[in-house]
């Protein structure tokens, strides 16, 4: 069971859980703020729409296609 940090909050999730799912388990599930200031959450779930782009260990990744790993640092307001 990997333990990761999501916007400063620690969470332990089931093996194979996506970062998108972890964000919903830990909080409101939002992933980014749009250019006009709206909070957004994953839309397509399959790597197309880019709504779920977050910063993972300093790199921009898609939360819906990234699996949670031990020690990961996820930021949705980076």
């Amino acid at each position, binding site marked *: 069971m990997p333990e990761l940090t999501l916007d400063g909050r620690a969470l332990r999730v089931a093996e194979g859980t996506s970062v998108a799912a972890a964000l919903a388990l830990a909080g409101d599930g939002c992933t980014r703020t749009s250019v006009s200031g709206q909070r957004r959450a994953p839309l*397509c779930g399959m790597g197309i729409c880019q709504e779920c782009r977050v910063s993972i260990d300093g790199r921009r990744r898609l939360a819906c296609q990234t699996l949670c790993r031990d020690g990961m640092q996820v930021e949705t307001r980076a």
Partner: protein
Amino acid sequence: MSAHADVLIIGAGPAGLNAALAAAPSGARIVLLDDNPWPGGQIWRAGPQASVPAQAQRLREHVGALNNVQHHPQTRVIAATGPRQLLVEDAERGWLIDYDTLILCTGARELLLPFPGWTLPGVTGAGGLQALVKGGLPVRDQRVVIAGSGPLLLASAATARHNGAQVVGVAEQATRGAVAGFAAQLPRWPNKLLQAFGLFDRHYRTDSHVVEALGTERLEGVRLRQHGKLVELACERLACGFGLIPNSQLGQALGCTLHGQALAVDAWQATSEPGLFAAGECTGFGGSELALVEGTIAGLAAVGDRQGAARHWPQRARWQGFAKALNHAFALAPQLKQLARPDTLVCRCEDVPYSKLAGQRDWREAKLSSRCGMGACQGRVCGAAAQHLFGWQPSAPRPPFSPARIETLLCLDDTPPA
């Protein structure tokens, strides 16, 4: 860092897996790229809340055990960098890969049409919700409404219910007559009939479509038009998808001719470009059975086994019949083009409202004047929506095909100047 593949396959869904399986006995060096963590595509997506069918498990294990098939998960194509060469990137690094033969099995995505409130957190695609739930998204005790069109609505409802959601509505835009006509043909494909029985939902309504997603900070409810009457349902999630559209962008960028929105292929699954094959949903929506047989034909044809490939033609024809019946039944009603209001965002990357697009001449003009389609998704969502709403043909994509790291682009430094 570079690599060579005799046969390079893009996409490890049903078509890509079967293409690898069919091509492998030739001894060819096969590389299979896919942008997801696990093979199986969308239909066989694995995850903590997914149940992957035994057939899919077997196929994955079988391909995984082949010594001459190298699988790269979480890998995307960034650019076509030369004749028979692609620049690709995974979570850690970028590299160039040369190939002799390419098989595109890039699948399909959902057609997501803009309607008021669709940018609220809590609104997803229909297949989108299913994919997210399989990946562990919690839906237990949440009220879910599913809307749009096609059999995916019932599949998504079943996955949500199986994981504890309360599905309070399934709104199918097609008419009752169209859906009944399609259902009446299902005995021609008995396993599809069985699937349909397993998926039936008592909240399923035809002649119904979404009007507005309600809420301020996040989704609180949905307004639907059911048989002409407006109804409101309180819900925590709305999953809305209007059928599937082929992921033809990479093929288009490589010069392949399109047939409608899909990559055009001949009887061998060969595209208009020499040495370039395509199979599965990127050649037109038809379901996993059609994708599987197309993958087999493409894999065999790619290694020169035409006799073997031709043996699968009758099976392909059978599933093409199913695809035809399906696409006919779930054709989209014209009123779905009227869902957006002037202030409804169409481009979610650049936050471009409908009012900035209506009245433009074509996709290019719309892009230049509004930045529509110029954000991170590169028009994959709004370009398809605009094509449906305004009839604009999107242009062939330009590299980078998806957001890439600078280090990846630096790989191009290795190539000699042209």
